[in-house]
């Protein structure tokens, strides 16, 4: 009996582990400038499951973007540990982090962050180039995703020639073109009007339904309702986690 229970527990732990994509433990981030020391994150403990749609909310300056950047391996935590896809990535070098990011994580920013000198097509193509795909494969993939985002008629345009909503769709196209396991969005609707915002949220929902994990920072309660769970941050600490609904996703994505 005892043995059975132990085995069951271990099994459960293992499957849980498999189901979890992001684990942070006592995560801290301190910014030091010449004059001041800002503690942006303080002992953040988070578990995010594969296939989950999580929203992070909180007042300005509470550390949302900082957290998202660390989750996205764009930055290192000052303290604590971070396990991504069952790998401890806390102490990885920038080079190794680049390797993890490549093709696995898509980013969507409030300010789009498209490269002005490149066309829509080239912007979306960029991550595929870094993954080392051949030109013909890239072309097919980019066209497909531009179609999906309803922006293929703008492929030859430059970012400045597009509306904000269109630019964000390009940014999303660029984020998903590699079929990432995880999409990180930092206020994706922040610079958009409500109809464009809704469109973006619908896109994210769709992606999530097809199995992609989404972590999104937002100020909007309406946007947060798309999420399975809302994590509230305050002053660098997690203050509450509300589950909106049961996570019920069937096709969990393959591991890398």
């Amino acid at each position, binding site marked *: 009996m005892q043995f059975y229970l132990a085995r069951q527990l271990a099994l459960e732990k293992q499957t849980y582990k498999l189901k979890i994509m992001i684990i942070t433990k006592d995560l801290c981030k301190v910014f030091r400038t010449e004059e001041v020391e800002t503690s942006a994150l303080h002992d953040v403990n988070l578990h995010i499951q594969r296939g989950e749609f999580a929203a992070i909310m909180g007042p300005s300056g509470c550390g949302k973007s900082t957290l998202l*950047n660390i989750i*996205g391996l*764009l*930055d*290192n935590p000052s303290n604590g540990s971070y396990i991504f896809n069952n790998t401890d990535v806390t102490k990885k070098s*920038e*080079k190794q982090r*680049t390797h993890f*990011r*490549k*093709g696995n994580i898509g*980013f969507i*920013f409030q300010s789009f*962050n*498209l*490269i*002005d*000198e490149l066309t829509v097509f080239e912007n979306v193509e*960029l*991550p595929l180039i*870094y*993954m080392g795909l051949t030109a013909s494969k890239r072309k097919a993939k980019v066209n497909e995703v531009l179609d999906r985002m309803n922006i293929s008629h703008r492929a030859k345009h*430059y*970012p*400045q020639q597009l509306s904000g909503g269109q630019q964000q769709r390009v940014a999303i196209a*660029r984020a998903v073109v*590699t079929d990432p396991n995880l999409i990180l969005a930092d206020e994706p609707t922040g610079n958009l009007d409500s109809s464009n915002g809704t469109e973006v949220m619908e896109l994210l929902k769709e992606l999530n339904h097809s199995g992609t994990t989404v972590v999104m920072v937002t100020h909007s309660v309406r946007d947060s309702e798309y999420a399975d769970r809302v994590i509230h941050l305050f002053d660098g600490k997690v203050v509450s986690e509300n589950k909106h609904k049961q996570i019920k996703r069937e096709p969990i994505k393959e591991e890398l």
Partner: protein
Amino acid sequence: MIWNNIKIAFRNLWRDKIFSLINISGLAIGLACCIIIFLFVSNELSYDKYHKDYQQIYRLGIEAKLGDMEMKGPFTSNPMAPTLLSEFPEVEEAVRINRSSSIIQNEDKIFSENRIFWVDSTFFKLFSANFISGNPAQALNESKQMVITKSMALKFFGNIEAIGKSLKVNQNHDYTISAVIEDCPPNTHFQFDFLIPYFDYPQSRDNFWLNDGKYTYVKLKKGTKQSDFDKKLNTLVTNYVAPALKSALNINYEDMVKAGNYYRFYSRPMSDIHLHSHSTFELGNNGDILNVTLFTIIAILILVIACINFTNLSTARSSKRAKEIGVRKSLGSSKTRLIFQFLFESILLSLIAFTIAMIIVEFVLPITSVLIGKELSSNYINNPHLFFIFLGISIATGLLSGTYAAFFLSSFKPVKVLKGELSKGKNNLLLRKSLVIFQFSISIFLFIATFTVYKQMQFIQDKKLGFEKENVLVLKNADKISNIKSFKERIQSYPGIISSTFASAIPGEFLNGNIIGRKADLDPNQYSFRRISADEDYQKTLHLELVEGRFFNEVIASDSSKVLINEAGVKELGLTNPIEEVIARGVTRPLTIIGVVKDIHGDTFRNKILPLIILPKDSEYQTRLAIRYHAGNKNAILGIIKKEWNNYTTNIPFEYYHLNNLIHDLHKKEYATMRTFSAFACLSILIAILGLLGLSSYTTEQRIKEIGIRKTLGSSVEDIIKMMNKDFLQWILISILISSPLAYFFMSKWLENFAYRANLDIWIFIASGLLSILIAITTISIQTWKAANQNPVESLRYE
């Protein structure tokens, strides 16, 4: 207000120490180079302009082609000046000058001097001189008068009270000092120590128009046009030269011209002589307009590079301050005030650079004086305009680069309102691109130029001279040795001495002696040969190489009618089998060729080796004794020779030189120019590298956000560095394409100045291209490395 500006400016400079250092040092080095070059150029351009009415003074010369022989030079004949004075009303004065070297003696002070000139009595009406004592109008009126310079007075009399005293010339003529004048200033083509009346010159009354070894200077009446004068000058050819040709050489001038020959007189403004006249018969060591142009161009290039750098670096730094500017603007700082602050800062920078440049110049001038081989002085007190010119240049540099940076910066919008402004503008990119290409083109050009110059220097150094210049001592005044044969035997009995030769000239001194040689079969053509006469030890002592035949032999009595010629001479005469050919020298007896020597480089490499004829001993006046000794104790050998000299001569100065020094001096000026050029070229490349550093940091700054985005999307550090290099590499390739043909053109032009020159081979271009690519990649990669390695968030935050 101003004080506040200064405070802020200094704080900003201090905050960005590295930037300030690079920027200030780049501009300071650039300005220092410019100042030095400017001093050099203005010195070169100042030659002979101190003479009163120098614009009216000309030197006459002959330009002629007779068969294969072409010549141009300032040699005119005796009757020229008097004829001009009597027939040409526009000629105000005409002065003849003839060079002499003699032994000058005052009691126990005996020296051989070579800056002695026979001049017409009106000399001082053309040439300005400062008289310490004596009267310019009467100083050269009477026979055996002598004008000497201050330093000669001090040398021979110990003080400047020399008037009325006398000096012995060549041991038998007493000349009375009629005037003492200040030494000739350094910036004249004609330096002299002694002047004596022209009519004391033994052949001064020779009226033959073809005896053209003298210099004639004329002063034309105000308003006379040079071209008119030249035209009129050439009436003398038909009136006087043609009859002389007919009577002396039986040449019909008309036929001669019809055969494609010519004989013309020309005039050259005196102030042009130093830079434009390069005859082998110059009175002094002339400069070269090509160098002046070259250095002026370099100075301009350096200045331009330094200015571009300054601008680029200022802009690069300013984009770092973009945020500060945004805030300042949103807080209501007006655009003009911002611009003012920026201008203020960059002018302050340029003034600091200027001050440092002045200090550098003071320290470096003595070194450059050695390098260039002439004394340069900054002397701002005498030349206040110099100071202000450079001050102006630096302020202008500051103003120019400041303006660009200021407008560039103040156009930053605090909030990116309009989408169109997200792109920094295609104009800006184009400007940046052209600046880089421009800078790179200059640098690559200078690389190629430096390599070419270096190769030519190497070429000169490695070139076989045709004789062995080491371990040879040459005695002057050897004609004064009482019994030369016994003297030679005496010194050769010492073990350290190998051999010696008594001759009229040594390689390196083959200056005078154009003769007209003629083939014995009465070939109507005339050939110009240099000539020396030498005893039978000449070849052995100087290690001349024999191509065929033999050298003179003491025991063969008939050798007194035999000659040797060099390879150039064989070619000139068109001989296939020169040995035993008979040639004639002028109208004298025929001479048989017994040998051919390899060409001897006894001149700068600019000039082609001329045909040379080696005449048997005593056919010419011989004054040189060259002595070859075993390498080793030079001083002991000198001591021996000096001792013997005193046994064989009385009251003759013991004067000697080492042959290698003579040859070195021959190329000294060449080396000096080349070394100076290379030094400046390297400096400007250094400045350009500083600029590249600035520019790539500027570009990195500008693209830092893009770098962040790309890294977020999975780009590796290497990808980023490659990307940043790619643009620059493209630009370098364009620069190589632009500068290579230009460099090819200019450097082959430069090389054309040398009759003997290195090849401009492809490696010079490849090496220059590769070197610049290497430098660029290193510089850019160092710059980009930091940006590419930092966390992408940090780049993304950059706004």
